[in-house]
C-alpha cells in the first residue's frame, strides 16, 4: 500500500463521520439514481467495515465532505477526462473530497444486463476512488482495490489485505473487524 506525500488523512475526532452527496447536474441517465446510490452505499460500507468511520448520504451537495459526479472531458479541475476507457475516474486526497467519474464510460452495475465490451463496473471504481478520498495512493499489489488499472467487464470490489492494512494504519481498526474473516475470504479465493 502507499500514501500520498505528507500522508494526508481526514483530521476529525474519532469515530470519523463523513457525509457524501451526488451532483444534481453531473450524473448519467442510463442508470437510475437509486442504482447509483446503492452501488456507492455498498462501496462506502466496505471501508466502514474495516475502519472506525461512518459515511452518511446528504442532499446538500455544497456542504458534503465527499462530492460525487460524472463529468465529460475538461471539467475544470485540471484533469480532463479522455473519452471511452483510458482514464476512468479520479479523486482527490484528503480533505478535498471530490470524486469524479468519466461520463463517457459505459458504467455498469450488472454485466448480465449490459453486453458492451467496454462496460466498466461502477462499484469497483467507486471503491477504488473512495480509497483515494480516504488517503490511500496506488499500490503495486495487483489483487488490491488500490491497484491503478481495471479491465472492462471486470469486477474487483472486495478489499484485500493490502488495502486493509494501509487504511487501518491511517485510521485504526473498526472494533468489529476481524482479520480472520478477510483471511478466510482470501484463502477461499486462492483455493478457487
Amino acid at each position, binding site marked *: 500500500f502507499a500514501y500520498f506525500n505528507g500522508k494526508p488523512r481526514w483530521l476529525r475526532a474519532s469515530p470519523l463521520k463523513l457525509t457524501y452527496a451526488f451532483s444534481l447536474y453531473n450524473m448519467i441517465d442510463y442508470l437510475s439514481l437509486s442504482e447509483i446510490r446503492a452501488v456507492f452505499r455498498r462501496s462506502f460500507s466496505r471501508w466502514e467495515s474495516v475502519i472506525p468511520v461512518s459515511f452518511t448520504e446528504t442532499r446538500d451537495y455544497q456542504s458534503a465532505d465527499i462530492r460525487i459526479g460524472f463529468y465529460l472531458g475538461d471539467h475544470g479541475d485540471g*484533469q480532463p477526462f*479522455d473519452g471511452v*476507457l*483510458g482514464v476512468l475516474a479520479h479523486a482527490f486526497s484528503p480533505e478535498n473530497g471530490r470524486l469524479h467519474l468519466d461520463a463517457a464510460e459505459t458504467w455498469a452495475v450488472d454485466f448480465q444486463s449490459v453486453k458492451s465490451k467496454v462496460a466498466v463496473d461502477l462499484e469497483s471504481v467507486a471503491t477504488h*476512488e473512495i480509497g483515494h478520498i480516504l488517503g490511500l495512493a496506488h499500490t*503495486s499489489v495487483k489483487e488490491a482495490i488500490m491497484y*491503478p*488499472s481495471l479491465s*472492462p467487464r471486470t469486477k474487483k470490489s472486495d478489499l484485500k489485505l493490502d488495502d486493509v492494512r494501509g487504511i487501518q494504519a491511517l485510521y485504526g481498526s473498526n472494533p468489529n473487524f476481524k482479520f480472520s474473516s478477510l483471511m478466510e475470504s482470501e484463502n477461499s479465493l486462492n483455493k478457487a
Partner: protein
Amino acid sequence: RTAPDLSTVITVVHNATWHDFDRFIDAGKGSHVNGMSELKKYFNRFGYLPIPDKNFTDMFDAQFESAVILYQRNLGLPVTGFLDSDTISTIMSPRCGMSDASHSLHTTRH
C-alpha cells in the same frame, strides 16, 4: 514479412487515446520509434517522467528506460527495462487518473 500475432497477448479493449501503443512492443534502450513521444507523455502524466522543459523525442533513451523500470516495479510487473508485452498491455489498460508518483510505498508480507 508477416507481422507477429499480438491477439494472444493483448486481449483488453482499449480506448482511442492509447490504442496504438502496441506498436512499441519489444522497444528498448537505443530504439527509435515514430510516436514514442506520445508514450513518454503518458509516463509523464502518471508520474514516471519529470515535467519536460522541451518536447519529448521518439528516442528510447536512458531516462525513459529508468521510467519504464520504475513503472514495472510500481505496477508489480517483471522488471525488464524494455516494453515487453506485459508492460504494454498494462499501459493500455483503462486506469485511474491519479498519478502513481508523489507517494511513499509500504510493503505488505503475504
